[in-house]
Every structure is written in structure tokens, then in C-alpha cells.
């Protein structure tokens, strides 16, 4: 276990592992996502209340799911950065922050598209919409701070502190916004309860969520690999890698 953990700190080792892992993540991700989305959009039964317009759920829920869990993953990586000073953890945080921001935006956008036929308006100051918007602001803050500090080490630790302060605040923000105003339907998946929708609806949804997770994994690996190449450009193994073209 500990040996694995220490190995994880080595950029070269991670680069190799990521190269081997990435095709599987990409193929699996695309397959699952396609299966989930096609099943959901074309074959799943109509909703008795919302008709066909509910089908955007198969895109909306995966993006919203990822948008929230990426911030949690960043917080875990931030703890690792602060406690073990692991460079790769910091690289993970700054590599996936823009991905998280884009997914948060997509969740808001698909939510707006869904809101138009069901609520009759693109945007409402509803609790869950607003807390997603605030999550987007938190992502922007992390990206801005990461870009503002030139020194690699202090940038890593400052970003980690900011991510942790954000993660402490997320539940507070969520509950105060919820108390402030609520219209959105409650969450689709809860770990503690059986889903209330029929299996023909939630199975494709689950497939789409898992698929997007895998694609996120692929994207994270890709971005981290790029980051490693930039950071370690003076080391011999990177120069050799670039010279041989990765073979």
C-alpha cells in the first residue's frame, strides 16, 4: 500500500501508468456514455408528466454529478498536497479545475434548456441552480489563483488551502441557498434510497454517469501528462521521450 503511495508521487511512473490506462478509459467511457445516452434518448419510456422533454436528464444529471464530485476529488487532492507535498496531487487539482468548471457550466446550460419547457423560463433563482452557479464561481476562483502565483510550490499550497476553504463552505452555501428558495426537484440518485424512477430510466442514466466518469478519468490523465511534460521538461526521461516520440 505505502509503496504504491510513494510510487504515485513519481511523475515518470504516473506517466507510464496513465499511458497504459488511457485507451481503456476512453473506449470504456465512450461505450458506456453512448449506450446510456442512446438508450435514454431513443428507447427509454416517456415520462408521464413531462413527456419527451425529460430526456435531457441523461445529459444533465451526469454533468451535474461530475461537476460536484470533481470538487470533492480536488479537495482530497488538496489534503494530499498540504500533508505530503505530493506534486502530482497539485497537478491533478489544476488539471481538473477547468474540466470541473466546464461541466458545471454544461449542467447549468442543460438545466436551462430543460427549464424552458418544464418551468416556462430559462433561469430561475432557485436553490439548486444558484448553488451550482456558486460552485462555478468557486471553480473560477481556483483557476484564477492557480494562474496568479508564479512560484510552483507556493502556488500549489495556496490553491490547496483555497480548495479546502471552499469545500468546508459548500455544505453551508448549499443549505443556506436551499433555505432561501427552492423549486428544483430533489436529487435523482440518493445512496440511501432506491431510485423512484423505473429501471428503464435509471439504468441508462447510471450508464451515462459511469461513462462520463471514465471519460473524465481519461481527460484528467491527458491533462496531467501534459502538465508533467511541461514541468519535467529538463529531466532526461522527458527529453528522451520527446526525442523517441514516446516509443
Amino acid at each position: 500500500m505505502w509503496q504504491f503511495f510513494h510510487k504515485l508521487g513519481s511523475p515518470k511512473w504516473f506517466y507510464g501508468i496513465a499511458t497504459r490506462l488511457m485507451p481503456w478509459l476512453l473506449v470504456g467511457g465512450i461505450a458506456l456514455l453512448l449506450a446510456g445516452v442512446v438508450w435514454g434518448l431513443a428507447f427509454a419510456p416517456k415520462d408521464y408528466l413531462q413527456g419527451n422533454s425529460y430526456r435531457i436528464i441523461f445529459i444533465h444529471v451526469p454533468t451535474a454529478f461530475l461537476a460536484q464530485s470533481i470538487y470533492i476529488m480536488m479537495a482530497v487532492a488538496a489534503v494530499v498536497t498540504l500533508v505530503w507535498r505530493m506534486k502530482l496531487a497539485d497537478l491533478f487539482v489544476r488539471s481538473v479545475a477547468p474540466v470541473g468548471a466546464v461541466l458545471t457550466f454544461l449542467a447549468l446550460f442543460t438545466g436551462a434548456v430543460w427549464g424552458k419547457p418544464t418551468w416556462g423560463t430559462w433561469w430561475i433563482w432557485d436553490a439548486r441552480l444558484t448553488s451550482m452557479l456558486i460552485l462555478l464561481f468557486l471553480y473560477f476562483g481556483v483557476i484564477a489563483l492557480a494562474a496568479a502565483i508564479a512560484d510552483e510550490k507556493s502556488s500549489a499550497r495556496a490553491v490547496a488551502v483555497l480548495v479546502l476553504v471552499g469545500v468546508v463552505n459548500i455544505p453551508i452555501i448549499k443549505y443556506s441557498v436551499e433555505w432561501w428558495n427552492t423549486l428544483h426537484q430533489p436529487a435523482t440518485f440518493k445512496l440511501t434510497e432506491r431510485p423512484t424512477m423505473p429501471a428503464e430510466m435509471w439504468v441508462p442514466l447510471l450508464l451515462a454517469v459511469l461513462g462520463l466518469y471514465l471519460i473524465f478519468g481519461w481527460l484528467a490523465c491527458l491533462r496531467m501528462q501534459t502538465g508533467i511534460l511541461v514541468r519535467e521538461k529538463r529531466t532526461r526521461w522527458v527529453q528522451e521521450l520527446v526525442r523517441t516520440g514516446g516509443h
Partner: protein
Amino acid sequence: MPTDSSVRVRPLTAGPGVMAAMVAVVRRDLQASFRQRQDLLNPLLFFIMVVTLFPLGVSPEVSFLQQAGTGILWVAALLATLLSLDHLYRHDFDDGTLEQLMLQPQPLYLLILAKVLAHWLVTGLPLVLLAPLLGVMVHLEGNSIGILCLTLLIGTPVLSLIGSIGAALTLGLRSGGVLLSLLIIPLYIPVLIFGTGTVAAAAEGAPVSAYIALMGAFLVLALTLAPFASAAALRISMSNS
């Protein structure tokens, strides 16, 4: 090695106690602030001017102002606090005082707590004292003004405490001011919601003790956690320069 560590610990426990050090920091910061009187005045003037913009920009109608007044005052107080945060560490950072403060044997987070207290005394407290006057100008009722001042009294220290984290993180950066706002505004949202919510509840005649208690909980949480985060952020920023 117990003997080794006791040797190392002894000089650290010497010197003035923690309380004495905190009092000294507060006194020094207050003294420094009162020697730069204009800096003290600026956030207050900003507060008044922002509040003035709303009747001019939206509507001077009594009914509108009565409804929106609390929100206007709270947002203006929030922005004024944000604006003043840059001063929290900046001068001490420039002249090296901050470095000396970090070398003190007393725990840094307590010294930061003292600094934030001094900062609140010269920025947050005047905002609270000025609020009744502006409250009358936006036609709030007497009861609402009282509750508003109470929420500001509990809320502005939370703003200062959370803000100190952002100020520490952006210390010594070129575009620190805007970045600071970017980082901190999302974190201010719960305080704003409950600050204005309390006054709205009071205006409807609902009991407000639960709201006040929740704001008190925010204050306690910020008092216990924010100085730690601020101290960690300061150490990072100082190692950078």
C-alpha cells in the same frame, strides 16, 4: 529524545503571554490605523456612496426602498468590507512587520485573530454604527433598523474573518484586489442570505431568534476555523516572497 526537545521548547515559552501579545497586536494596529485617518474613512465613504446609487439608479420610491433597503445596505457593507481587506496585511507585509509577527513564539492564528479584531474595530464597527442613519434614508422602519444593526454586528466580523483568508492568499500578488474579490464573494453568500433574511422575517413579524442563533453559529465557526486557514495562507505567501 525528551531532553533535546525540552531544550528547544524553553526559549519559546519565555516572553509575554498569549493574551499580552494579542492585546499588544490590537493596540499597535489601532494606533497605526489612527495615524492614517483617511484610510479609516474611505470604506465608510464608499459604503455611503454605494447606498446612494440605488435610489438614483433604480427608484427613489418609498415602497421600493423599504423593500430593498436591507439588501442594499447589506451588499454595500459587504463590498466596503471587501475593499478594506487589502489593508489588513498589506502595510505590515511591505514594512516587514508581518515577518516579525510570524517569528513570535505565540501561535500565529491567535495573533491573526487579534489583527482581524483590530481591523473589524476600525472598519466593521463603524459600518454598523453608520447603518441606522442610512437605514432612515432608505425608509426602513425603526424595528427593522434595530434588527439590521444586530445582524450587521454579528455578520461583519464573519466577513472580516473569512476575508482574512483571501487577503492572506493574495498577499504580494500584482492583481491582488480583484482576485481577492473573486475568491471571497462566493464565500460571503450564506452570511448575506441570513443577514437579509433575518430582517425580512422581522418585518413580517416572525420571531427572529432562530436566525440570530444561526448567524451566531456562523460567527463561532468563522472564529474557530478562519484564523487557522489564514495563518496557513500567510505562511505560504511569506515563503513565496
